[in-house]
């Protein structure tokens, strides 16, 4: 029943071969259903248009980092710039994870299946921000004090959860290439990547436990995650019902 993810699929309309490199595996039934209507209704964007959209997504993902770098160099991060920088990079990592989770519902609701090809881009950017977040904490805040790092992981619950989330994210980043999808097989790959439904809540919990008293910001993220996960449950339930 599964298609070869590298063959032309619902996410890559006929003639879209130039996009194959960025084309993530299809979402199976979800994408096919969304794509069914779209293919007839929508005109395919030109190659130029497509590359422009792709460039815009890249730039949007890069923008927070450029902005933060600018704030570091213009001394705009307040009296405690190291803490502010680590926090900001982490928050952007979490935001990109949420954007990644939002792509599938958005593609379905807006009837734009080709959005799905950005899941990998956004996901890898989220991973990059989170790596940088961790590196800044270890390299700048702790100044490579490994003993302290071990203590932090064991004794500070928010760091324990954060490290767990990061560790689980690594295999997803490693298996993000088309080659890895092929090697693992589509079903195994898909099951592995369901880990993201554990990782994102871990990221939110990491943020929640870090906050001293005003829990509103992490709760906003928790609410968004709840909606994005809730949509999936609702959607799966609907499809199960329509099959029966």
């Amino acid at each position, binding site marked *: 029943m599964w298609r070869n993810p590298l063959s032309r699929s619902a996410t890559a309309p006929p003639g879209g071969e130039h996009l194959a490199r960025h084309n993530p595996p299809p979402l199976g039934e979800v994408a096919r259903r969304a794509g069914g209507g779209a293919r007839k209704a929508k005109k395919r964007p030109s190659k130029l248009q497509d590359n422009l959209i792709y460039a815009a997504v890249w730039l949007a993902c890069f923008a927070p980092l450029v902005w933060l770098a600018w704030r570091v160099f213009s001394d705009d991060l*307040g*009296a*405690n710039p190291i803490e502010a920088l680590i926090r900001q990079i982490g928050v952007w990592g979490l935001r990109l994870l949420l954007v990644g989770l939002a792509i599938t519902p958005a593609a379905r609701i807006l009837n734009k299946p080709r959005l799905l090809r950005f899941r990998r881009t956004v996901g890898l950017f989220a991973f990059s921000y989170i790596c940088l977040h961790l590196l800044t904490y270890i390299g700048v805040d702790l100044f490579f004090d490994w003993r302290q790092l071990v203590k932090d992981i064991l004794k*500070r619950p*928010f760091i324990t959860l954060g490290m767990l989330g990061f560790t689980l994210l690594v295999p997803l980043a490693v298996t993000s290439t088309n080659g890895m999808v092929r090697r693992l097989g589509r079903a195994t790959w898909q099951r592995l990547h369901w880990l993201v439904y554990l990782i994102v809540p871990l990221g939110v919990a990491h943020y929640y*436990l870090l906050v*001293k008293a005003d829990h509103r910001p992490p709760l906003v993220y928790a609410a968004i995650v709840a909606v994005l996960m809730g949509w999936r449950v609702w959607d799966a339930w609907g499809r199960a019902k329509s099959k029966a």
Partner: protein
Amino acid sequence: MLIRRAPDLTDNDVTDPGLYLRRREFIGAAAGLGLLAAAGTASARGLTYGPGFSTTEKPTPRKDITGYNNFYEFGVNKEDPAENAGSLKTRPWTVRVDGACEKPATFAIDDLIKGNKLEERIYRMRCVEGWSMVIPWVGFPLKDLIAAVRPTSKAKFVAFETLMRPSEMPGQRWDVLQWPYREGLRIDEATHPLAILAVGLYGDVLPNQNGAPLRLVVPWKYGFKGIKSIVRISLVETMPATAWNLSAPREYGFYSNVNPAVDHPRWSQATERRIGEFRRRETLPFNGYGQYVADLYRGMDLRANF
């Protein structure tokens, strides 16, 4: 540990704390330091004060002391107090001192400022969040105010209360903490010569975001014990409730002495980042004031009484 000691902690021969606390006056007089002599007479910027017990460490820049604050009455972010505290009217202002004492009284803030001998006290300030500053306060010993109302033998603790005025303190419009902010000290802590009520900073009148017009400074405890914009001080018989302890009792104890050996679930208390420095530095027990205050806690288990 020895090499981490601050310069002001090397002189440990003096046994009488009263004498010790005035050492800089003697040194100043002996060395004929014009700087101290000038400070001893007057300040050009509003407050008249003399030199007092101080660290020789370099004070944190004023813009950081006045721009990076935890003062939840004006918002939960560090920049919020500087932005929002301008709305607070600090005149007229009175401080009610009552409870277990013979002469309870209400003091006008200007009478407190004029009626007490103000000193500059340059203290380290260690925040529970793992950062620290060196702050040149101007103030007077809390013990002087307590003595003025003649505490009775029932005065075992001192309870402090911040102003409750949501119209000028926008942070009080929702219950991120139980307002008004409350703090407390044991009577022997409150009458220790190092505990002061501050009315100034860097020689100027205290900026609103730093707790104007009157705040507590207890340098061997975490910064949140330094209650700001005080309107009431009560001498009481039982341990009073404190704001952060009410909010998270397992995280913030009544004593909250700076203690690198007691972990906090969120921040490492073993080290701290001095604002303006790149590398973390080791946190000292009692914030480096152990030789003056450790005796207050003799025989107490400071891990249980955190």
